[in-house]
């Protein structure tokens, strides 16, 4: 477990045990964008992503208030957080295992934080890229999309296997197939 992951757990425990809201704010600042993007790319729907993300964070607050979060050597804080979100998504939005009510790629808003302000041209180009990515993700089977989206958020495949409940070998295989399709659709065959 890395220093940052260990730090995440201590922040969570500080919030849970001492009611240190500053600790929670740090955790929230670190993970809110990654979690939101994961759900957005999974659901391809901004309203769903907002709802799941908000529900996940509030669920985390409830867990802390009940004193039920336990720092575990086996799972990082981020793994735990993403598992909560993924379970909520599949429980509430994916009972039929189909993408329901997906936004058109253009409808998905891509906010840019102030510190990463871009020129209009850069912003337009990035939105174009993102739209192409969303279209490509939409065509992936949900199992492959889930794996590749988690991997895109920086999680390693062991964590992805924990979150999805699949074996590590299955996750590796899903990621390989997903990336091959994305490269082909996005015209990135030359990219390693």
């Amino acid at each position, binding site marked *: 477990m890395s220093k940052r992951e260990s730090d995440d757990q201590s922040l969570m425990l500080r919030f849970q045990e001492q009611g240190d809201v500053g600790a929670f704010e740090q955790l929230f600042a670190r993970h809110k*964008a990654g979690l939101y993007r994961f759900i*957005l790319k999974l659901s391809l729907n901004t309203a769903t992503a907002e709802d799941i993300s908000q529900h996940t964070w509030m669920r985390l607050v409830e867990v802390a208030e009940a004193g039920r979060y336990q720092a575990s050597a086996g799972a990082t804080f981020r793994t735990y957080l993403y598992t909560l979100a993924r379970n909520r998504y599949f429980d509430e939005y994916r009972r039929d295992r189909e993408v329901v009510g997906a936004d058109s790629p253009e409808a998905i808003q891509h906010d840019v934080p102030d510190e990463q302000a871009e020129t209009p041209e850069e912003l337009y180009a990035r939105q174009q890229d*993102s739209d192409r990515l969303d279209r490509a993700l939409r065509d992936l089977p949900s199992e492959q999309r889930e794996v590749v989206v988690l991997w895109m958020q920086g999680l390693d495949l062991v964590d992805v296997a924990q979150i999805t409940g699949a074996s590590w070998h299955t996750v590796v295989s899903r990621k390989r197939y997903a990336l091959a399709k994305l490269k082909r659709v996005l015209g990135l065959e030359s990219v390693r």
Partner: protein
Amino acid sequence: MSEREPKGEFDADAEMRTLLGSADGAAPSSRHDQAVLASARAAASRIRARSGLELFRLRIAVPLLASFALGAFAAFLLNRSLLPTPAEPAVAEQLRIPLHVASRDTGAPTDEIPVEQADPQVWYRYIQELIYAGDRVQAERHLRRFNQLHPDFVYRP
């Protein structure tokens, strides 16, 4: 770089990961953030209130209760030691002294009379003799009974 992921797998797709990740600048709305943070602040104040109560319990209430309990126990022990002990059972020890001691040269050496019938002065001297003879156990038994029967006795040698 993650050590848990096979290096070849990671290196092969590192560029792709960067490319896909950079294409994404989505973030939740400020309304989302405000709702989450408001919920966290409310929970934090409840946790602090709860832990404050627990702190009170641990640092003040528990020692206070413990000192009360200790004080009550000490008072109980003190009262118990100051209170008069219950009267000894009414069954008095049946002690006797030799008749020749009691009457000085009358009767056979084996004859005895109950101590209740003996002259206190004679009985007292008999006790002294027991002490001089080294029979402390018997002397103490007689002395205890003697004090019960003659609490105001003054020895006149």
